[in-house]
């Protein structure tokens, strides 16, 4: 036919399960253990309180700037809980809830926030890449890890997380296409929190949704209510399953909202209004999930208070541990470590000169 529509050849879907009013679509409801549900709720609360505490610590000058995930807990925990322990997780810089779930200790996060490289070391046995600050640059890494997993037949899946703004970068495009061409076992999770610092979606991209970018790579895309933990979990579980069974990547767009600052250097009042924030506060993902739990799972309202105390205590302890580690880690000479597997001669000399200078004895230059 001379003039006709072109078919995409891939599905692009929307998914929600528990809506804002707490209405549940029973058919779509996943069959998850109560234990897991309770753990996820606990993780959401922990992350929220941890972010709040860190905002305080930052204001007191005890840690530096960081990117809170407040408002995005359902997206992050819904997705990460679909990943197996032996799978890979490739974060950007706002994924504290996910990292904690994967086993990074609270004190390590604090150490990182306080400017210590040691905070970035992944815990023993954990398969997370460290934080990637350059936006989108981690997407190709995920494609490569996935390629290697397929080649070496390890059965691993890779979940990579990034923001709405990140989809504008060339690296997103190249990484997604690389994964798609090679049908690498990769889950591309876009946390659409509506802003890239001050830039809203409509100034960020020509498309109305992010999920439709999946069409570019010929991969399935699913757009999901990112404040609905169960919906995100279902979408992620499907994507993980697809990846694991050899059918390649999926693009997930989780529609959510950053309720707090971009980082502590940011002032949202310069680019968005209170009303908008208020509307989204009403959709708070923790509150929605708590109500669901209280309704459906044998969890009493009372349990929540106990949880708050427990969480506060864990955070206190973590800060103490972090402070202790910081005291031990004073020595800046460690900056000469880990540049190469073996320190080359000229670097050894620079290190020696640095040490000598600190003894005030040495020459420089």
């Amino acid at each position: 036919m001379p003039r006709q529509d072109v078919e995409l050849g891939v599905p692009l879907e929307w998914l929600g399960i528990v809506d804002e009013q707490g209405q549940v679509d029973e058919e779509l409801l996943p069959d998850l253990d109560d234990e897991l549900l309770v753990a996820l709720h606990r993780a959401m609360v922990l992350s929220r309180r941890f972010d709040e505490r860190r905002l305080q610590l930052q204001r007191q000058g005890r840690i530096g700037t960081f990117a809170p995930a407040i408002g995005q807990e359902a997206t992050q925990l819904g997705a990460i809980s679909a990943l197996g322990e032996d799978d890979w997780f490739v974060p950007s810089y706002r994924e504290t809830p996910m990292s904690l779930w994967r086993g990074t200790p609270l004190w390590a996060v604090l150490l990182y926030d306080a400017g210590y490289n040691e905070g970035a070391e992944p815990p023993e046995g954990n398969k997370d890449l460290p934080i990637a600050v350059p936006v989108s640059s981690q997407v190709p890494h995920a494609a490569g890890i996935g390629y290697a997993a397929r080649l070496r037949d390890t059965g691993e899946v890779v979940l990579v997380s990034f923001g709405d703004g990140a989809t504008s970068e060339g690296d997103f495009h190249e990484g997604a296409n690389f994964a798609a061409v090679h049908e690498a076992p990769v889950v591309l999770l876009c946390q659409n929190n509506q802003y890239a610092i001050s830039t809203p979606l409509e100034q960020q991209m020509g498309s109305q949704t992010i999920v439709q970018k999946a069409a570019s790579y010929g991969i399935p895309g699913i757009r999901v209510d990112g404040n609905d933990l169960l919906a995100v979990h279902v979408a992620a579980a499907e994507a993980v399953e697809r990846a694991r069974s050899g059918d390649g990547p999926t693009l997930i767009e989780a529609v959510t909202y950053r309720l707090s600052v971009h980082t502590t250097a940011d002032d949202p009042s310069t680019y968005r209004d209170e009303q908008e924030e208020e509307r989204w506060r009403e959709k708070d993902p923790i509150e929605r999930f708590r109500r669901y739990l209280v309704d459906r799972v044998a969890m009493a309202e009372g349990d929540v208070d106990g949880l708050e105390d427990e969480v506060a205590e864990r955070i206190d302890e973590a800060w103490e541990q972090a402070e202790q580690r910081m005291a031990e880690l004073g020595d800046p000479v460690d900056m000469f470590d880990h540049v190469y597997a073996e320190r080359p001669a000229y670097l050894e000399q620079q290190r020696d000169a640095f040490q000598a200078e600190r003894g005030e004895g040495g020459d420089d230059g």
Partner: protein
Amino acid sequence: MAELTMIQALNLALHQEMAADDAMLVLGEDVAQTGGVFRVTQGLKDEFGSERVIDTPLAEASIVGASLGMAVNGCRPVCELQFSGFGYFAMHQLESHAARMRWRSRGRYEVPLVVRMPYGAGVKALEHHSESKEAFFAHVPGLKMVIPSGPRVARGLLVSAIRDPDPVVFFEPKAAYRACKEEVPDEEETVPLGTSRIVREGDDVTLIAYGAMLARTLQAAEQLAEDGIEAEVIDLLTISPLDDSTFTASVRKTGRVVIVHEAHRSFGPAGEVAFRILERSFWWLESPIRRVTGYDVTVPFFAREQAYLPDADRIVRAARTALREE
């Protein structure tokens, strides 16, 4: 005449140049609505509108590439990359196009483009926010590479960069953004590109620095003066094209040199400065040229960044060594 921080001084330059030239545009991530993460472009959108002050998508290569297109089609874009550590995303647009369009088209297309990037360590920022890789851009024919040290020269250099018919990479020392205020005249003032300046005269040793390291170098000169050593301090201002007359002349007077930069040591800018001295003033050297630089390690996270950076003590020690030797 007002007392301004470097941020305010840069902002003044942008305001005045936009008002003077309708062809001038400002673009970058978050430069319009919020006035940039450091607020250097604050107020521009309100005054000149969102067609001339543009929040772009988050994509550095296209920010530089689109700016080049704007420049070719009659505009004078000043684009901001949020930190120089993200400038590598646009390296190919700078190296392969901005630097070459005049040359490639045999002068038919000019690229009067300024690419602003905050650079350098010392503000307790995250990874990639403390880079000082001016050597990359200085090594590319067709680009100019400028680094101011204080509010007043920052304003004057930015105005010159905007009016320059060629692409200028303009590094702004974050550590000096709000570190001090200086008198900056209300009326127009320019500092020519390609000219360094002597900021302190002295006969005993020549200290060469730029950007955020200038303040530390001046501090070192004060310390040396306490012992009766008079250092001549030179602020390069433009890294490329490098003004080698001022410092080679100084070396002929002092015979002793220390070059200071926070960039990594190996293959850093000091190599070029030294070679120009070798080529023009070798016979006047009384001791080996010395350098005080960042180390050849990735800039550590902020708990250790001060240890990475040259400080006045290291500069003083290097100067003393240069003076002791003969």
